[in-house]
């Protein structure tokens, strides 16, 4: 377990090595370093994980060195391993490794091949720092690191202006969240005197009373930070545009890992949220609203990656919902399963887009189940998990647990449950709309070549995980296996159930299954069986369609309210006072330069005259002084 520090350091080393020699080594060797570092990190993770599990202690902390000790804040570079961070580093390293293998072939023809792996390694290193941090300061370090790498990777193809715009948009919006997080950190330190997670967990209940103003404010600020990074309401507008980056980037950052940082921080500081019930309710509400909003938007999108982006926003809404009702381990379970199937979906989508010459519009695809069978079957498994088809997919077990606990948890209520149920319905619709339109039907664009092993293998592995990884947590009615929750129990308290509803669980499950199948059937009806039914529905709802297509108009509102005034002020201020000052100095200097250079005319008599004038001045002054 002493090797814990290697887990984040190995990707950083890989990035550093690639910075030094990346442009000098051959194309084949670049992924060896790039993916190899992540692979090694995964290996170390496995060793450390096994060691940790067999030792039986609840946590392990390793301080590398003291970072700063100033004004009462004693912060070290501390890595702490417990069940929660073990889950996260498992997902990050393992899924990250698969995605790196995939991108070794996907990005092979790109001119920025080494640069890609440098940024990806930096990202994985920072994300690992984020989840392994033992205190909030080191976590904030990782937080900022992943934000930066997200910017670098979204704008990876920097020659296109819109990619840079999307990258800037992502960075600036998450910055708003980061500021809230920083203020929350300051307040936490001010009240508790420490930023170490374990100490926060013990001191917070002593210092704060339940529902006191300070702790509510702190919780809301932490929520603000989480909302920014996880693309929830109201800061969700950056994620659909972030699809401008390469597909492996979308898979790693915007599906599996970075956007779940918000979930992580709320789970990590759950003590604060338990002390601020209104904030926790806000978490659940944000989650519920977001999942509905994003789901409806996803139904109207025609860009394959944008559907998946809105789907990510929606699924993270489920995780927030779970966190909000106190179902901490359910949220983390859904995170893990979601990471598997969403990464799978993004990688498969990337394969489809690459093989169809960068065609993103699903209505210009079709019939791909015959021409790309491997991709089709893996995509289908991922989609099934997303839609939570009962019993055979992992997604069913995780999402169902959230649905159940939204109703039956101690803090759950009917509204949240209804929202989640509607969300499940909408999820099924848009997921299978995607499958049917892109993969069934007749072929509109023909794929030119086949994907290589490096791209298919991760898809297969992720598909297997999306199916079987759910079996570690079965609900009460189906065997009551609670491996995952038990595993997380030392860190995250178990959710307490509203006892009156315990026996109704199977009703909820049947209902959810019905909604899922209903959604699939509607998609089938409108897109495969009787497509002529679709146009009249489309025209009837055309206003609503446009509204949902633009993500409920958030972009337009932000543009008008925030962006345009700010740009206007900046344009007015282009020749601002500070500029004028330095320009003025330049102008004055120039003026005097011209003035004085006029005296250097090269004519000797001028110079003599100068000497004489100087002499007169000196004599006069000495005369006056001595008079």
């Amino acid at each position, binding site marked *: 377990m002493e090797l814990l520090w290697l887990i984040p350091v190995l990707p950083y080393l890989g990035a550093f090595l690639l910075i030094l020699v990346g442009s000098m080594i051959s194309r084949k060797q670049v992924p060896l370093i790039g993916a190899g570092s992540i692979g090694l990190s995964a290996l170390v993770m496995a060793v450390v994980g096994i060691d940790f599990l067999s030792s039986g202690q609840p946590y392990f902390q390793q301080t590398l060195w003291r970072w700063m000790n100033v004004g009462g804040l004693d912060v070290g570079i501390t890595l702490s391993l417990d069940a929660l961070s073990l889950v996260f580093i498992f997902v990050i390293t393992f899924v990250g490794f698969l995605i790196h293998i995939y991108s070794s072939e996907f990005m092979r023809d790109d001119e920025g091949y080494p640069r890609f792996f440098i940024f990806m390694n930096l990202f994985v290193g920072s994300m690992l720092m984020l989840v392994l941090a033992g205190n909030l300061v080191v976590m904030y370090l990782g937080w900022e690191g992943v934000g930066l790498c997200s910017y670098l990777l979204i704008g990876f193809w920097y020659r296109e202006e819109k990619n840079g715009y999307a990258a800037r948009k992502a960075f600036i919006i998450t910055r708003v969240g980061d500021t809230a997080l920083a203020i929350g950190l300051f307040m936490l330190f001010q009240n508790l005197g420490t930023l170490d997670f374990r100490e926060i967990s013990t001191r917070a209940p002593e210092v704060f009373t339940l529902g006191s103003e300070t702790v509510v404010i702190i919780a809301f600020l932490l929520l603000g930070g989480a909302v920014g990074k996880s693309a929830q309401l109201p800061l969700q507008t950056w994620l659909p545009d972030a699809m401008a980056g390469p597909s492996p980037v979308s898979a790693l950052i915007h599906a599996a890992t970075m956007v779940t940082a918000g979930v992580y921080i709320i789970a990590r500081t759950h003590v604060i949220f338990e002390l601020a019930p209104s904030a926790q309710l806000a978490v659940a509400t944000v989650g519920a609203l977001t999942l509905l909003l994003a789901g409806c938007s996803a139904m109207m999108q025609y860009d394959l990656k944008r559907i998946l982006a809105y789907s990510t926003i929606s699924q993270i809404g489920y995780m927030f919902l779970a966190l909000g009702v106190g179902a901490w381990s359910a949220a983390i379970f859904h995170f893990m399963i979601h990471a598997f199937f969403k990464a799978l979906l993004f990688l498969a989508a990337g394969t489809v887009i690459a093989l169809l010459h960068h065609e993103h519009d699903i209505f210009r695809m079709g019939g791909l189940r015959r021409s790309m069978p491997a991709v089709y079957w893996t995509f289908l498994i991922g989609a099934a998990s997303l839609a939570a088809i009962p019993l055979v997919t992992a997604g069913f077990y995780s999402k169902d647990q959230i649905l159940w606990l939204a109703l039956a948890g101690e803090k759950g209520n009917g509204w949240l449950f209804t929202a989640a149920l509607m969300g499940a319905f909408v999820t099924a619709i848009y997921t299978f709309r995607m499958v049917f339109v892109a993969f069934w039907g007749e072929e509109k664009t023909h794929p030119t070549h086949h994907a290589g092993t490096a791209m298919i293998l991760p898809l297969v592995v992720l598909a297997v995980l999306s199916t079987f990884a759910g079996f570690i947590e079965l609900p009460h009615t189906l065997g009551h296996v609670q491996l995952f929750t038990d595993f997380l129990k030392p860190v995250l308290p178990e959710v307490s159930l509203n006892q009156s509803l315990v026996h109704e669980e199977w009703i909820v499950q049947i209902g959810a299954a019905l909604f899922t199948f209903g959604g699939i059937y509607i998609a089938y009806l409108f897109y495969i069986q009787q497509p002529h039914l679709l146009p009249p529905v489309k025209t009837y709802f055309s206003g609503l369609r446009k509204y949902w297509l633009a993500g409920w108009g958030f972009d337009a509102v932000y543009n008008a309210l925030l962006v345009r005034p700010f740009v206007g002020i900046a344009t007015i201020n282009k020749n601002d006072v500070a500029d004028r000052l330095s320009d003025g100095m330049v102008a004055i200097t120039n003026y005097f330069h011209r003035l004085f250079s006029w005296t250097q005319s090269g004519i000797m008599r001028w110079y003599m*005259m100068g000497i*004489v*004038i100087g*002499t*007169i001045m000196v*004599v*006069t002054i000495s*005369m006056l002084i001595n008079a």
Partner: protein
Amino acid sequence: MVTFYIAGSVAVLATIMVITRYNMIHALLYLVISFLAIAIVFHVLGAPFMAALEVIVYAGAIVVLIIFVIMMLNLKQESVDQERQWMSKKLLIGPAILSVILLAELIYIISTTESGAIEQPALDAKAVGLSLYGPYVIGVELSGILLMSGIVGAYHLGRQKKKVVHRFLEAQEH
């Protein structure tokens, strides 16, 4: 003492003539007169050796040198016309004002400091020689170096390289 004032006024008048001539040689001749007058002033002030030196070195060597160079330049009548053209009356105003100011200040300073009379014992060559090779012998050395550098500099700067053209190009030139 009368001699002093007469010689002084001759020197001033000669100098005024020097600075207003258009012909170089005329100016130099008036300069010689000015130097001679100054030599008389030196003698009256009790420095007979300096008077002799003034005549020999200043009037006899330096002015002659300048005359030689002027002759070497082979200037014709047009230089006199040129000078007439260049020296205009209105250029006189600025320098005149400045110089008058400086002169006024100088006179003021001189007249307000303590005055004394000049004794008559003349310091002859012996006294000068004792002083020169006594405490001020280093000045003599430095003067030697200065004159040496003057000789070397004058020789080097005065050299004119003849442009040697190859015979083939010479044929082309013609």
